[in-house]
């Protein structure tokens, strides 16, 4: 009885990959929707403190309404000595000394003003209400935060936000 064929190389059919792009696109769209772009990659170390009931700065407000500045120790240890108390400010991809008597005291107010003036007029809110979000390292001394506040006060940018990590539901 030779109902069963012996040997006779039966070929394994190739896996149909025509739906692979669809799957990948789906993933792509998920990530596009669920994430926000980094505005910059700071060259200072910032380890955020944790807090509760913080206000969410990302989703419904456009990010462009908020200016971020970073305060931390420079990643490059060779540069740490340049800065007062070892902390540096990171604004717009440039390392600046944290406010203080050393030099460049007006860096923040100048930066903020430039940013404000470069916005198209229809997007402009009162400068008082434009949020400046300070992302500072856990162990940064608060005097530096108050130095930043002083500079903001000078140009009437009166809304400041202290960044924390909020793992709550909100």
């Amino acid at each position, binding site marked *: 009885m030779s109902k069963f064929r012996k040997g006779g190389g039966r070929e394994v059919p190739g896996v149909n990959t025509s739906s*692979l792009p669809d799957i990948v696109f789906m993933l792509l769209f998920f990530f596009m929707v669920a994430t*926000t772009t980094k505005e910059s990659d700071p060259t200072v170390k910032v380890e955020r*403190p944790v807090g509760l*009931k913080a206000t*969410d700065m990302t989703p419904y407000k456009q990010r462009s309404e908020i200016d971020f500045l970073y305060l931390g120790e420079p990643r490059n240890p060779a540069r740490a000595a340049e800065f007062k108390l070892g902390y540096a400010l990171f604004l717009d991809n440039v390392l600046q000394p944290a406010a203080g008597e050393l030099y460049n005291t007006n860096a923040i107010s100048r930066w903020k003003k430039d940013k404000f003036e470069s916005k198209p007029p229809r997007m402009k809110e009162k400068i008082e209400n434009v949020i400046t979000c300070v992302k500072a390292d856990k*162990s*940064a*001394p608060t005097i530096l935060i108050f130095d930043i506040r002083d500079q903001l006060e000078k140009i009437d940018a009166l809304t*400041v936000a*202290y960044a924390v990590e909020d793992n709550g539901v909100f």
Partner: protein
Amino acid sequence: MAKREIPEINAGSMADIAFLLLIFFLVTTTMEKDTAYVRKIPKKLELPQTDPIEKRNICDIAANNENQLLFRGIPMEDPDLISDKVLEFYQMNENLTKAQTIAALKNPGYKGSNFPFYSFTSKEEIEENVLTSETQLAEVENTPGVEEDVIEFKLKQLDEWLAKQKAAESYGKNILPEIHFQAHIRVEVMAETEYELFTKIQSEVEEAIYELRDFAAKDIFGESYGIIKKREAMDKTDKAGDKRKLKLLEVLYPARIIEVKPN
């Protein structure tokens, strides 16, 4: 003419393109949320004279260079207790009636005499105050040589009364209970206090105020504060009138936080 067959487009590289895009987005995006405590820097106004602030209206939270805490003059070990203490600050005299408040003010032995008292403003009184601040503002504006700061101060006062008027309308009752207008939270840190402790204090204060507003929101609107806030942020058309609700809660439990610059 013979029909020319259209060749099929080879889609084999489509997946590669999509992967490339996917990887690009994976690399350039962050999942973490940006959360922060938003605070207003008070504007400096030069005013001829202001009333001295009573000690009972100050909720003073201080931290030193060694990151030790002092809450209203008493050392505090555990920073998690701040929110309870702030709640106490707001709530100590909250449930007194008008007559009880007057009696308590006269009695120096009363246990809550070191906490801010509430005032009870009726709609009529608010209206009256709106009118008087309007006339005061007009008066100041018409005085020649008056300083701009004074005008701004009067303007601010008028705004406050207008906000109260709106709040009283949405509150629905004739009398709007209000914590003393001087009552505030004062965060005093030293130069080398760590940012972590500073934000911890902010977090605790925020928590206390959130809780107070949450109680009130459930009481008045039957909804939690978080839900109202979230909906307000999502819904641009403001169908449920959430803006008005939030304004009322802010008037009932104002977050007056003063951060003192270390010297």
